[in-house]
């Protein structure tokens, strides 16, 4: 079972370059999320989507863009890479958001380790 697949696993960018981090899931989940994880800082939500064609900002959206043209794919775009965007990026998906008061489990990919030099 593939689950959530992220590509690439590693990437080095120069300041000012752009790139797209790919994320695809095969679980037919409606909800998808992008997080960044900095050392010692936990995970912070960048953008999320509740379904195809619908996206919204999370806690730290500046410098990023997303699109959701299909249920399966949720790419994250960096337009002008900056050193502050050096981080590990995780994509996640879930079937829904809440079941009663219980949060639906989020299924994470293995991450993209991005360095901006």
């Amino acid at each position, binding site marked *: 079972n593939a689950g959530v697949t992220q590509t690439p696993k590693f990437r080095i960018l120069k300041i000012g370059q752009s790139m797209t981090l790919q994320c695809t899931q095969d679980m037919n989940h409606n909800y998808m999320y992008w997080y960044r994880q900095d050392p010692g800082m936990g995970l*912070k939500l960048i953008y999320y989507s509740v379904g195809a064609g619908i996206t919204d900002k999370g806690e730290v959206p500046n410098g990023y863009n997303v699109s959701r043209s299909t249920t399966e794919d949720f790419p994250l775009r960096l337009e002008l890479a900056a050193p502050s965007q050096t981080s590990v990026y*995780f994509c996640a998906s879930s079937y829904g958001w809440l079941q009663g*008061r219980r*949060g639906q*489990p989020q299924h994470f990919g293995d991450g993209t380790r991005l360095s901006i030099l």
Partner: protein
Amino acid sequence: TQLLEQSPQFLSIQEGENLTVYCNSSSVFSSLQWYRQEPGEGPVLLVTVVTGGEVKKLKRLTFQFGDARKDSSLHITAAQPGDTGLYLCAGIGGAGSYQLTFGKGTKLSVIP
């Protein structure tokens, strides 16, 4: 802004010892999740606790949600090297919020 403080930040223990890690907040959460993350991988959900005072057991792991739904703990009995990893707690907030609030994690090393 809802914050979750996890302690300790780092923990190194010998195989067979018991340990407890804590997740505290001044905010009330409707539910709280615990994830475990191994190096080079994404977090994997261990448990969700919903009711104040709730205790859940997962083999040697015991999770408790505080009565006021502001804090939680994870207790591991007879730790094994396979328990090594980063333990993250994440809170589900109020209605209309689609954000999980993650703590910074507790990095556990179990030495054989």
